[in-house]
């Protein structure tokens, strides 16, 4: 079939602009991570309020509070504490919670998997529905499906996800009883996990889906109406669906991917709220608690992880772009 021997091999890929791009991005990612953690530290430290006081409660005496502070070096200058923390991190030690003395890493490993499951579920819901709907809308711009789709998607993305969550709980949990209102995963079976995460995932995923559909549709239409290669394809006699799916769609997906990656930060923010409403034991929950307690190590640990996720997501988007876009993957070969 296709002549494999003639394909550009991995050797060319290594010299390719793609890898240079990745290296470039990695290099800029490191200072960003530094910046983020430093900023978090600074903010938590500089804001009024006292961790020790908070944690020990109103009735603690001055000595108790002071003892607490000494034990945890809370009186050291801010920069010293930051670099201490940084040093620890680089050796893999994220410290312990001020409140519970539980190692931060264990708090993370308890909550992260659940949060990621929720995020993945929400992204899946939104993306799986986006492509077919955008295609249907783009098939007949201005037609019935398109108009209805645009109206509902505009409405959908104007709904706050926490409002949707409340309404979903009311309809599906309280009235219909189909799905649980609170995360209940006692048995740990995949079935129960999915049931527990469904309403939260819809709450997050639905406004996203509306947003992505509009974007993808606009992008596809831009390709279909503005690009010459589409006319070439039509002039060959290619049918409209094939032109949409085989020609316009692959070129549009790039734009969508970039935006999905850029939006990860917002997505995480949404997760924090939703986890609170549904009592999902993810890190959003732990984060809120830690912020309330001014539990610096936990906040720092979680922020670090979240920042890393955002940076990696952006990096992945760039990488995917580089790998999938043939113009970057293969440079110009000699004519």
């Amino acid at each position: 079939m296709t002549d494999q021997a003639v394909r550009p091999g991995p050797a060319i890929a290594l010299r390719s602009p793609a890898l240079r791009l990745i290296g470039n991005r990695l290099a800029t990612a490191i200072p960003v991570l530094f910046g983020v953690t430093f900023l978090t530290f600074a903010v938590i430290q500089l804001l009024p309020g006292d961790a020790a006081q908070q944690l020990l409660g109103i009735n603690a005496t001055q000595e108790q509070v002071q003892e607490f502070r000494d034990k945890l070096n809370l009186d050291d200058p801010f920069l010293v504490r930051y670099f201490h923390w940084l040093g620890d991190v680089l050796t893999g030690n994220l410290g312990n919670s001020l409140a519970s003395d539980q190692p931060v890493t264990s708090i993370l490993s308890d909550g992260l998997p659940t949060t990621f499951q929720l995020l993945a579920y929400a992204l899946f819901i939104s993306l799986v529905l986006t492509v077919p709907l955008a295609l249907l809308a783009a098939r007949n711009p201005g037609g019935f499906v398109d108009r209805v789709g645009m109206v509902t998607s505009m409405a959908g993305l104007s709904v706050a996800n926490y409002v949707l969550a409340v309404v979903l709980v009311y309809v599906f949990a309280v009235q219909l009883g189909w799905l649980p209102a609170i995360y209940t995963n006692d048995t740990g079976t995949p079935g129960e996990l999915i049931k527990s995460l469904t309403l939260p995932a819809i709450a997050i995923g639905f406004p996203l889906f509306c947003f992505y559909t509009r974007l993808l549709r606009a992008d596809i239409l831009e390709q279909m109406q503005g690009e010459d290669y589409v006319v070439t394809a039509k002039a060959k006699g290619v049918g409209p669906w094939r032109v949409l799916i085989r020609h316009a769609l692959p070129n549009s997906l790039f734009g969508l991917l970039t935006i999905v990656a850029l939006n990860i930060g917002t997505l995480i923010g949404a997760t924090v709220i939703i986890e609170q409403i549904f009592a999902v034991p993810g890190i959003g929950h732990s984060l809120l608690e830690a912020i309330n307690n001014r539990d610096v190590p936990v906040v720092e640990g979680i922020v670090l992880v979240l920042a890393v996720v955002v940076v990696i997501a952006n990096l992945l988007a760039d990488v995917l772009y580089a790998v999938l876009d043939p113009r970057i993957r293969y440079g110009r070969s000699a004519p």
Partner: protein
Amino acid sequence: MGAQLPEGEAGGVAATLAVAPTVAEPAARRRGWTRNLDLIIPGALVGLLLFLCFVWPLFGTVPPPTGGNILDANAPSFSEGHFLGADQVGNDLWSRLLYGGRNSLEIAFAVNVIGLVVGGLLGAFAAFWGSFVDTVTMRILDVLIAFPSLVLALAIAQSLGPSKLHTIYALCFFSVPAFARLARAQTLRLRERPFMLAAGLAGTRAPRILLRHVAPNILPALVTFALLGVGVTIILEGALSFLGLGVPPPEPSWGNMIFEGQAVMSAEPKLVLLPSAFLFVTVLAFNLLGDALRARGNAS
């Protein structure tokens, strides 16, 4: 090919909505003013909302939103003295909706105006000066965007104590970087245009170029972004209030009304549904308005 996003555009619904690719929408078949319906309807809706929240309480007979009589608790709609009924502690619901809207809108406007001015200036300056200043600013913006700003917002709100002003501070951490990104991208695009080169060659000094050439050209995109941002900000403010860190009770805000109403949703659904509806309609109106302006901006 693909959406030509300005490099590294800010995440967030508003950011990407504002720079969504231009599409030749099916030509409007109507003539005259009916062709501008997509602008008029949301515009009128926004006008109505602003009127209700800011103007009406000054003249109309609206009872105060707090300090209600406990004997009036859970009064049904259209009962005496309470147009839409009362909440669990006797506060007039209609009043709380209006005053809550005022709070939410004030916060949203403040955040977006500050974002536009501060962020816009920052971004435009950075792009204009280029090289070192630009790179440094970009890195800082990168940090702020990678930073889960929600954390910051929560931390600020938590430690300073929940209040309207503190909510505004907290939310500015979202808006300023987003506007700065947009302004920077727009200014960069502008720099390449011949009239900019011409202005520079003619010896026009920098501040003048910024004022007379850059500002008027990037302002439309920024304003559209701000309109879309109002919707986003109201939702965020609602989220903060929902978590107890926004506008503090008993002051109403749509967010905290929804939160409080949750508990009695089975018995009194309107306590959740009414503020939710107002929230929805407001955000929708601003989104539609921003969208209509964006379509016009792109067409030109």
